[in-house]
């Protein structure tokens, strides 16, 4: 059997309208990974996909989503008209003899996970670079190269909870501390009128969001999966934390903002603010003290002055330090509670589609992927999660696996709740009762549609 775990076979983006004539096929390929693949091989792969997509369009107005061959699975995603993103993974296949012994298919990457990866990659691109259609044709190849190469290399597609249900981990906070943060944000926005706080994160948990939920997820993923781990590593390597670090600093650009040149290095992003109707371009300014990270935006057409940023630093630094200390105290308490959660026999997952809140009895942390949920079980959950229609606005499904796992999926009021119970010789009634108890114990104050 071939080890394909978490390997991306290839990833490419094409637009057939870019080189419509014969001999211009390479122009159609905006990006191809891995880069060592020869031009001919690229043409063949892309050509196949072009053909499939085109062929399928005669049968359905919906764009083609996937293609599976004996050895490969192709997932297609058309984020903008004529722009196709394709992700290819190898399928573990074995000879008949082996499969008849009962070789599990559980390790196979879920199509929904692959789909998620494509969508996330696109959203990330859109956030940092913009729409494909807005990028001038002459620079789109280099833009894609610059953005997707490091992005794809940093991604791995594993059957992990965080890849199955893409949610945001919110930090539960006692209300006075939360109000303190809200006040701090208000003060900041009033004193620095051009600046808008779009996110407040403690460790990897979100406390405050000022973006539309979709964009928040993308920014959150960027912070938690890419920027912050690097930052934490730097802080750890740095040994003794310098006084400057303790009192906070700008972490983008990575060496901080000290000179006028640094201002030019500040990244620009396309985002839609919460309660706003359109996506606009902003400077993204990220500031960090202790474990608290705050994201600010300024309209990209404004001119940033070094003086303003310096006074911003002076303003945020001490306040954020005291807030971070307050939260830290509370987190110690939560850690204790979470330890108890993890000890509960039954595992559960919770997801709210409205604010993308995700909660789990299984520790979720990008640094330590959860191995606590068995792959088959996760596959079933992925199935329920992606097949939103079958449960409707509210509903419940109980699935039993061969090895005595009972998986209950509950959907209600835009929320999903999964409970995993391993129990021998149980019946559906017992399981339903147990799920009810877990639900009442863990989801206090949340209304599930009665049936």
């Amino acid at each position, binding site marked *: 059997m071939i080890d394909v775990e978490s390997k991306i076979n290839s990833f490419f983006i094409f637009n057939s309208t870019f080189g419509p004539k014969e001999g211009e096929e390479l122009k159609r390929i905006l990006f191809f990974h891995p880069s060592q693949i020869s031009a001919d091989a690229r043409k063949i792969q892309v050509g196949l996909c072009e053909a499939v997509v085109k062929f399928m369009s005669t049968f359905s107005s919906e764009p083609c989503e996937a293609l599976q061959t004996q050895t490969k699975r192709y997932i297609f995603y058309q984020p903008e008209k004529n722009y196709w993103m394709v992700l290819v993974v190898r399928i573990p296949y074995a000879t008949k003899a082996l499969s008849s012994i009962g070789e599990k298919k559980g390790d196979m990457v879920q199509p929904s996970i692959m789909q998620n990866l494509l969508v996330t990659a696109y959203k990330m691109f859109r956030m940092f670079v913009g729409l494909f259609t807005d990028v001038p044709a002459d620079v789109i190849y280099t833009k894609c190269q610059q953005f997707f190469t490091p992005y794809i290399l940093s991604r791995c597609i594993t059957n992990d909870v965080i890849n199955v249900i893409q949610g945001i981990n919110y930090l539960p906070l006692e209300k006075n501390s939360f109000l303190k943060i809200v006040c701090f944000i208000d*003060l900041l926005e009033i004193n620095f009128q051009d600046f808008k706080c779009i996110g407040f994160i403690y460790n990897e948990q979100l406390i405050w969001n000022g973006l539309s939920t979709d964009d928040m997820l993308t920014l959150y993923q960027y912070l938690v999966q890419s920027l912050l781990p690097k930052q934490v590593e730097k802080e750890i390597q740095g040994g003794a934390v310098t006084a400057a670090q303790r009192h906070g600093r700008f972490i983008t650009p990575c060496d901080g903002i000290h000179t006028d040149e640094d201002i030019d290095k500040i990244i620009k992003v396309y985002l839609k603010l919460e309660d706003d109707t359109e996506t606009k371009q902003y400077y993204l300014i990220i500031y960090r003290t202790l474990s608290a990270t705050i994201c600010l935006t300024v309209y990209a057409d404004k001119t940033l002055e070094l003086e303003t940023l310096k006074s911003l630093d002076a303003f945020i630094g001490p306040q954020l330090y005291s807030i971070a200390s307050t939260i830290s105290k509370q987190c110690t308490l939560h850690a204790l509670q979470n330890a108890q959660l993890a000890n509960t026999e039954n595992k559960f997952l919770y997801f709210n589609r409205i604010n993308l809140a995700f909660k789990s009895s299984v520790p979720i942390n990008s640094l330590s992927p959860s191995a606590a949920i068995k792959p088959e079980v996760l596959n079933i959950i992925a199935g329920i999660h992606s097949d939103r229609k079958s449960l409707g*606005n509210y509903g419940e499904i109980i699935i039993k696996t061969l090895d005595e796992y009972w998986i209950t999926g509950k959907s209600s009021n835009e929320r999903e709740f999964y409970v995993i119970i391993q129990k021998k010789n149980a019946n559906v009634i017992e399981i339903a009762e147990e799920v009810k108890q877990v639900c009442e114990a863990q989801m206090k104050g949340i209304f599930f549609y009665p049936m």
Partner: protein
Amino acid sequence: MVKFSLEDSDPYYLTLSEQPKRFDADSPVTNVFFDDTNGQVFTVRSGGVTGVTVNSMDESKCTSFRMEDKGPIISIKLSLDQKVLAIQRNNEGQSATVEFVNFKDLSPTNVEYSHTCKWKNSKILGFVWPKANEIAFITDHGIELLQVLPEKKQLKTLKSVSFSGAWFSWCARSNIVVLAGNNGALLQPFYFNNSTIVKLQKLELESSRPVVERDVCMVLVADVTWCAVFRHALTTIAAPGPTEIWLMPLSGSGVNYTHVLKTGLMGRFALSVVDDLIAVHHQSSQTSQLFDIMEECKVENNSVTHLPLVPAHTMRPAVVDEQPCPIWSTDSGNWVMFQPDYVIDARRGCLWRLSLAPAALAHNIQKEEIGKIVSCLLRRRGGADVVHRLLAQLVASAHLYLLQLTDAFDQINSVYSNVITCSLCVRALACGGGAGGRLRALLRRGALSDSRPLACQLLSLARLHPAATQLALDMMYRLRAREEIVEVLLSCDEAVSAVGAARQLDPAAWLGLAPRKLLAAAHAHAAQRAQPHAFVAVYHALQARNDTTRGSPHFLKGEQCESYVEYYEKVTAER
């Protein structure tokens, strides 16, 4: 400087009672006495027969009577139970004697007697009634506490304490008397308790700056009795500084530091206590200052310094006989302040009580002072309503007063928890279009308390944002508003779940729910989606209900379900 002014407020933070209690004005033939223990004004007309009129804010303590004129009166006071009248006269040779007249139904009986102090040649400085049947003679030799036995026409000495004093000050509310000794450099408090006299720790003042009688009074503020002393600057120096008021705690109160009130003024002063605030009246400027000794402050060198809470201002002008009555006008001398809040104009014959108008504290104040004022208002009896108005106004222009709002709520949080916030939030919710995200965040964090009005407001926003429905239903669930949940689910086109929720109601409520309503919702749902399953499920549930209540699955005629029965038959037949 940004100023804040509470709407519909005026600057008069001190007002006199609307209607003064009128009495015969001071004149060559009348004398006016005031007893602050009972709050009674005694008007004594002399010449032949003495006519006495007693007036008080309390109608049950008003009376008038006649008595024989036995000489000029120095002091006249009724006992606490209004059953004995004590009179001290300025008669040569018997100055240590007090006369008594037994009273019945506020009229004198003919039972009269007198008692002479144990120190025969002492001078009675005055007397007080600490208890219904106890009287204390305060003399220059000491204090004698006596029990009055009206039936026996006798007085019995309970306790006496020797102290050489020149004058005294009495606080009826705490039963403490302070005697001034050593030419006003030593103040010795005594406490009447359980028919005995307790000597409290003495207060010593610099012998270079002794006090006189009019500079000392006793006040009860924040449940502590203080000896208030006006400390005027020495007149001997070239540039005398302003007067300070020292509030010295009397022992046993648990407080061991002095409050120093900085008036910044010089001249004649008087002092009142309203709603635990100290009002200092300054004669020449005709203004009053307010001091809040409960405000948060640092103790330094065993003393705490206070500045006026708000700038000095005149009292609301009183109107007497439809004429504005100037306060402490230049021809004054006729205005007298008594503890805690009595004001007497002897010439016009008016008795008022002072009261605080809390709204005026928020009139035209510095923006930065809002927090201080809120915290002060929270300690006032009529303050909550003003705080509520003030917050509503701050919220209305929150962009200007953000810091102050934080401060104000911090102050409130330290006192109450969450009483006022809810109604404010509902208002903010109703008008705040762009703040939806913030509101949702606050709700999810439980920063706003659950309440039915809030849940209903949320529901009305459901069309604008799907999260509102989710939050509203959660809130109703926490509030156990099960019947409302059924209604909401029905209006959300979720008939099956509505039936589910209805079954969780108490049995009577579920059985009493009109079937037509449920079927109508289910029918609408089915018609919209061309999917009869939900309708069939609801129909079956109701049939089962009919079966348990009436023994038959059919609907009653009065329930008007015929059209739905037809629809049911149609869809089931199709299957």
